[in-house]
């Protein structure tokens, strides 16, 4: 703490504050342009000059506040210096303020108003016509160099916060400008369109193309991934026109990615469903709610029991999902209810459940920058979870060691201490190999293992076959890298593991997850801040959909169907008879449709026709089903197969909660009215349930649903809408005076005996392997610019940034096959084929190809297979498909 005097006023400056920060903290304005609270000071604009007694004129943004300092902010000399600095800026500034997007919100206007402008002094020097062409190339924002003050905030934001470093100062003297490589349009640079520079630019040099200012803003949770960024959605005239990050949120601290900031226009799309549709003679015809619901009620009544199946939504709220799960079990009398976690993180839930006793990530996003080692495997956070990616880069900036393991070279590889590119599907070998190195070098934590883990003896025996020879041969990772990775991880005090579908979407995904849990337990990296195991969950509420019992084997809070006490509890609470026969996961539901066992579906906010592997087989199943109801916000690819389509509401049109990847329940709030006659998902399900005679579906409001959830599971007992208004709460939260649980397993694990279970794993190769006919291994993943299919395909700007499917391949493979970058190729597997263009890139390893799955016209999942599901979680092996690529 330093006490300084600013213009005679006593000001207390906290530790490590500059004079400018101390003044701003105390509510004293000193003009400034290049200072930004999120960035390191650079002292470039010379507008924040002050006079320090004994030192003269200094830039206050770079002067550390020291005890006893006397600061004068408005002397004639200070005024003279900053006036000239301001005039030089104004001379080159396009000052058509009224037509500028930043009018009234402009740093330069504020500075000029404070310092005062005498135009006569520089009128003659003024540029009369704009000197530079406007860069319109980005679909979401515009760069106008004529309004640039060269403060460099955009340059520093791109490098320090986003980590892309797409722009920098270029040229010299008067010609100095902010430029991309080669001074090309921003859209052709490394820019990822996150817009972090746009929100920080003090002038109109960087401004969104959507210039409509909102007439109201509502705090809500982003819908585009499991990070759960808090944002203010702005509405005007019944449309969403803006989004800005909430700087107070511990989850994203104001940061957003391109989808969260600019991807909201799908909400306003004219293609939104506005009325129920009933298929008559193969064509959809608009219907009233009564017609649609009467038909559904009548048909569903014919299919009660295990011939009926429900797929819930990882995009809908917890309340929507709870009601859906209750409806399936209490009214339809079956446990055939599942959500798309079956296709992604189900192995995380089963794996962590077996190892630690609870299927949730152990720590929080805010702890990432505090780790001293991050092990990132089978995930691409800067694209699939961009705000977590920013935190990982912040950790590296703080000195953390970064280990990256992925079959493809990912961006974070540039920041990594060690990058490994293993062959797809060989993770157990890599991870057990690392464990063996850790144990054989004595880097494990015997005390932690002794006190808190079971199964160490068997585990030591199981590690034996994973010699460096075997690991190198199996994974393709050089032995030195395996050893270095093991040492980096084990020698760190706070080592955190992050993973996603590269680990789970395998025929042995549960094993992969347990192999990661093994590493954490072996080294005691669990139950403390900034270490542990964090799965990066994909969809915005996939954690919640699982937690709320939209899975075949458990009620919400993972209360098992197999437990008679749970059945008794819910039969009493819901006043009904419940089925105890185990339900089917969604892949098995579809397989059992082809055998005639499943006859009818209720599909809520899910697109299995394009997201489940072996799409041809899925389409066949959906065609064979006798009655299909699809409930969605768009006529999705799946809805085309339905007999009745029900129009639902987007996240901007309803109230409720989402649970993010760190188990944090956060509010979503209604901003605008839904289009046409669209209704909230919970309302629709309750309406069907009531019409079918179901009891306990008379909620007035989603908050009543959350209250019921809490009464029936101690995980949620302490969580209600009122508390959530003060911020998100992480489960378990057993009472209203409980703060929630940021870190799991601090004292004991959630297993029956409180001990972590070390898993003695064996290596099982993937089902598919390259052969003469299909010599290349395809692995799949997600694009930064898309969120699966229907939603982002309705956002023209996102489509412009990533317009079509590409198959990525290594130059060696491309040369051998006579394929050049951009060529049209046919990709085929045993399951099917699809024509796309090739992207030739050294980011792949030879023999491996990569595709995303975001385009209806080129459905990647016709290639992937269901030959063998993970035996525990029943998840397909999306990440390893043998394919052939040919020029067409």
């Amino acid at each position, binding site marked *: 703490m330093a006490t300084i005097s600013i213009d005679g006023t006593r000001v207390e400056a906290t530790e490590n504050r500059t004079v400018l920060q101390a003044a701003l903290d105390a509510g004293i304005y000193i003009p400034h342009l290049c200072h930004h609270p999120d960035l390191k000071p650079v002292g470039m604009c010379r507008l924040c000059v002050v006079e320090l007694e004994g030192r003269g004129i200094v830039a206050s943004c770079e002067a550390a506040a020291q005890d006893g300092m006397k600061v004068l902010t408005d002397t004639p000399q200070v005024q003279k210096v900053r006036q000239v600095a301001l005039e030089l800026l104004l001379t080159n500034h396009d000052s058509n303020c009224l037509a500028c997007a930043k009018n009234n919100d402009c740093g330069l206007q504020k500075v000029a108003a404070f310092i005062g402008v005498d135009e006569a002094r520089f009128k003659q020097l003024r540029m009369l016509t704009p000197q530079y062409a406007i860069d319109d190339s980005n679909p979401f924002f515009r760069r106008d160099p004529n309004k640039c003050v060269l403060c460099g905030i955009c340059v520093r934001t791109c490098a320090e916060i986003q980590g892309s*470093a797409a*722009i920098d100062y270029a040229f010299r003297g008067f010609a100095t400008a902010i*430029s991309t*490589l*080669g*001074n090309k349009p921003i859209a052709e*640079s490394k820019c990822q369109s996150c817009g972090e520079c746009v929100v920080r630019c003090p002038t109109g040099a960087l401004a969104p193309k959507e210039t409509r200012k909102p007439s109201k803003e509502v705090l809500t949770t982003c819908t585009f991934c499991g990070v759960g960024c808090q944002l203010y959605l702005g509405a005007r005239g019944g449309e969403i026109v803006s989004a800005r990050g909430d700087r107070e949120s511990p989850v994203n601290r104001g940061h957003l990615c391109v989808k969260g900031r600019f991807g909201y226009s799908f909400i306003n799309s004219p293609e939104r469903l506005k009325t129920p549709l009933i298929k008559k003679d193969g064509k959809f015809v608009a219907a009233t709610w009564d017609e649609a619901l009467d038909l559904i009620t009548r048909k569903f009544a014919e299919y009660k029991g295990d011939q009926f199946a429900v797929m819930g939504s990882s995009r809908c709220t917890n309340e929507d999902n709870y009601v859906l799960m209750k409806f399936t079990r209490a009214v339809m009398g079956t446990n055939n209810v599942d959500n798309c976690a079956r296709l992604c993180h189900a192995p995380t839930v089963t794996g962590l459940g077996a190892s630690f006793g609870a299927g949730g990530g152990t720590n929080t996003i805010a702890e990432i920058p505090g780790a001293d080692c991050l092990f990132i495997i089978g995930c691409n956070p800067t694209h699939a979870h961009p705000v977590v990616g920013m935190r990982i880069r912040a950790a590296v900036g703080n000195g953390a060691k970064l280990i990256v393991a992925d079959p493809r070279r990912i961006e974070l590889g540039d920041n990594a201490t060690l990058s490994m590119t293993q062959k797809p599907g060989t993770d157990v070998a890599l991870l057990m190999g690392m464990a063996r190195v850790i144990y054989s070098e004595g880097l494990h934590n015997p005390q932690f293992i002794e006190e808190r883990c079971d199964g160490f003896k068997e585990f030591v025996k199981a590690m034996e076959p994973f010699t460096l020879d075997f690991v190198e041969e199996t994974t393709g990772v050089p032995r030195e890298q395996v050893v270095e990775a093991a040492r980096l991880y084990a020698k760190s005090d706070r080592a955190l593991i992050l993973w996603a579908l590269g680990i789970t979407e395998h025929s042995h995904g549960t094993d992969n997850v347990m192999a990661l849990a093994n590493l954490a337990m072996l080294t005691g990296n669990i139950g403390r801040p900034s270490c542990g195991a964090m799965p990066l969950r994909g969809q915005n509420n996939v954690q919640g959909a699982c937690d709320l019992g939209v899975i075949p084997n458990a009620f919400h809070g993972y209360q098992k169907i197999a437990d008679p006490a749970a059945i008794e509890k819910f039969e009493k609470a819901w006043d009904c008879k419940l089925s105890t026969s185990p339900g089917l996961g969604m892949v098995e539901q579809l397989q059992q449709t082809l055998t005639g066992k499943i006859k009818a579906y209720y599909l809520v906010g899910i697109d299995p026709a394009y997201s489940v592997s072996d799409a041809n087989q899925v389409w066949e199943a959906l065609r064979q089903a006798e009655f299909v109801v699809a409930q969605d916000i768009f006529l999705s690819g799946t809805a085309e197969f339905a007999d009745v389509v029900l129009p639902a509401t987007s996240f901007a049109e309803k109230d409720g909660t989402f649970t993010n990847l760190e188990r944090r329940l956060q509010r979503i709030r209604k901003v605008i009215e839904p289009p046409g006659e669209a209704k909230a998902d919970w309302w629709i399900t309750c309406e069907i349930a009531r019409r079918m005679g179901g009891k306990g579906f008379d909620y007035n409001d989603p908050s009543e649903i959350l209250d019921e959830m809490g009464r029936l599971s101690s995980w949620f007992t302490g969580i209600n809408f009122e508390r959530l208004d003060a911020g998100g709460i992480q489960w378990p939260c057993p009472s209203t005076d409980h703060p929630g649980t940021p870190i799991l397993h601090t004292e004991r694990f959630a297993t029956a005996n409180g001990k972590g279970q070390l898993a003695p794993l064996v290596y099982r190769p993937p089902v598919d392997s390259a052969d003469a006919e299909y010599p290349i291994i395809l692995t799949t993943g997600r694009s930064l610019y898309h969120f699966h299919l229907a939603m982002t395909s309705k956002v023209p700007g996102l489509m412009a940034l990533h317009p079509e499917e590409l198959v990525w391949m290594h*130059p060696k493979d491309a040369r051998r096959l006579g394929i050049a970058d951009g060529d049209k190729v046919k990709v085929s597997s045993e399951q099917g084929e699809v024509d796309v263009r090739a992207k030739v890139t050294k980011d792949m*390893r*030879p023999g491996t190809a990569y595709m995303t799955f975001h385009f209806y016209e080129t459905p990647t999942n016709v290639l992937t297979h269901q030959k063998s599901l993970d035996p525990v979680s029943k998840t397909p092996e999306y990440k390893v498909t043998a394919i052939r690529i040919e020029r067409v």
Partner: protein
Amino acid sequence: MAVEIAATGSGAPSESQVGAILAKHPAERSALIPILQEVQAKLGYLPEEAMCQVAEALGVPEANVYGVASFYAQFRFAPIGRKQVHVCRGTACHVGGAPKILAEVKERLGIGEGESTPDREYSLETVACIGCCALAPCAVVDGKVEAKLTPKKVRELFQGVQR
């Protein structure tokens, strides 16, 4: 294997030449300018792929490499033409109509300052003075001083140039 991926290129013709230059220097930011100078000495200019290759090798953002290179007048970003055109913009030439001469040259060749014609026959630069003010306005075309230029003379000089 990361090592193997880094070593096998997509095959831009200059890649191995730049690689050889990089091999002579420490992979540090401080080596950036000497490396760029050698790359230009070898290739005649700094192609974008070469700047990217240097950026990756040194761990410096590519926009930063361009920022540094574009600060110095010595670096070129387009290949030099077989015939270089230097239009004088010194005081005497300026008064004598250099702006019109320059505009005409640009029009004839279809390129701007610092650029080359697509067939790499001509490249265009401006200079502050070529030391023959008595002949203003003037230019040096392929090593020969062209004196007392007019737009008409420029047209004749570049007659037959395919734009």
